[in-house]
């Protein structure tokens, strides 16, 4: 995987997007995700009502890869049910682990497909999955 693929336009765009970077007024779940080896530190806030994710915020600071992945995730899960969010999360992680490779099956990840080849750069895999693992934990707290 070369740098152009890693720092693709889509990943750079999401890493600098501020849409989901504002704290929520009424979060119902909060969870912190850290990547102790490199200093990524994110705070995920969700407002869940009737099993549906109404609002998402991702605060804290991370590298371009973790921030882009978090931005893509926020966009995907906003408005989805908790179950749908879990399914997306499983799919994202399966894509990273190369367990699911068919483009047709990955369609629902939308911009998230940009991270498909991150496993070719093992040092950055943790960055790409940080926000998704933080989401899984948050949803488990909620349940």
């Amino acid at each position, binding site marked *: 995987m070369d*740098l152009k693929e*890693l*720092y693709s336009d889509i990943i750079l765009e999401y890493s600098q997007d501020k849409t989901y970077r504002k704290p929520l007024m009424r979060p119902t779940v909060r969870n912190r995700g850290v990547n102790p080896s490199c*200093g*990524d530190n994110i705070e995920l806030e969700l407002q869940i009502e009737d099993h549906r994710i109404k609002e998402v915020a991702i605060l804290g600071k991370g590298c*371009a*890869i973790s921030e882009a992945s978090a931005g893509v995730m926020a966009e995907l899960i906003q408005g989805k049910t908790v179950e749908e969010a879990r399914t997306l999360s499983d799919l994202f992680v399966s894509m990273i682990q190369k367990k699911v490779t068919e483009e047709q099956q990955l369609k629902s990840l939308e911009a998230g497909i940009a991270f498909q080849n991150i496993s070719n750069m093992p*040092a*950055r895999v943790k960055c790409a999955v940080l926000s998704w693992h933080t989401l899984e934990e948050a949803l488990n707290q909620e349940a």
Partner: protein
Amino acid sequence: MSRVVNPYRKDFPLFQAEDQKELALAYLDNAATTQKPYVTLLAEQLYYESKNANPHRGAYDLSVEATMLLEETRDMVKHFFTVPKEGEIIFTKGATESLNLLAYSYGLTHLKQGDEILLPISEHHSNLVPWQMVAKQTGCKLVYLNLNEEANISLEEVKGKLSNKTKLVTLAQVSNVTGSIYPVAEIIRLAHEKGAIVIVDGTQAVPHLQVDITELNPDFYVCSGHKLYGPMGVGILYGKMDLLNQMSPFLYGGDMIEYVEDFSATYAPVPQKFEAGTQNMGSIAGLRGALTYLEEKNRNQLFQYEEELSNYLLEQLKKVPHVQLVGNKTGNNRIGVVPFLVEDVHPHDVVTILNQDRIAIRAGHHCAQPLHRHLDVLATCRVSLSFYNTKEEIDRLCESLKGVRRWFGYGSERTI
């Protein structure tokens, strides 16, 4: 491609192979671990090929030879660090184990509620988390020394925080994040005046400074073999005999006993008391090789060259637009461990981009999260040098750094 001749690179198999390539790896992460010279690797191999037996166990020649190698290496370490007669060297698996040994066998039994442990905010987690455990279990308190503007410890800060409650002072001789050389000799003197015991973590100091334990006079001194051109899995603990004698063992088992009854045991004398189980003889043999290698070189020449490289690195980094040095910005009281930031780019992204140019540096909090909070940065990039590095590698680093911001759509030139 023209190469700057560095006389030491041929002693290291990794560099010998790299220097054949069109673009050699610029290994600039020596504070994490150093590369190993042939001498280290051969010593380890030779041990397993011709001397492998369990030391202290058999009465046969091969075991005696293994025991001799262990004890000769201990003597060599003593000579290398000028250990006084009233002190002893104990082999551990690394500085982390040495510090844990001290936390468990000294801290838990000698500290109590109301006592204070004084340590710099910059300590590596290995010299911080064990003391948090001791504080929690005994009720004693951790008191932090803050850093001044040069990322160093002023004696005023030490004097202000030392009190009759201070029973233990523990600190690195050189910071693994900032490269600052702390005034350890003076701090030891001040602490001893108050009756406190001093532990010095020399892990980052021993590869780059001449360390004379007799002159320095710490109560305990620790370091790792793998950052001193030795193999991974061997570390050193120096302690004063009177203290080691009053301490309980850390690990219990074979080779550390004198006599075992059904329900009790008496322990072997120091150092065996602290060396339970079979030692990592291959690594100990390798460490002996590393020390032999270093003793055969003119170490002052190595240190001088490292200082020259370090000054060149600082000079060149300052010229790179949008690079900010963190901590000490001068060459004073420091070794060639240099933390920095590239404006607007996370250190982890910086390292990924440099990796593409075959330059290896470290990003993160370098096992010192409290220091990074203190400096108000989440993470830093860190370059750390050794005598096998070259100015050409530093030039490559700076050239590569100039291109980093472009990946993120920022200008790379300074805008005033």
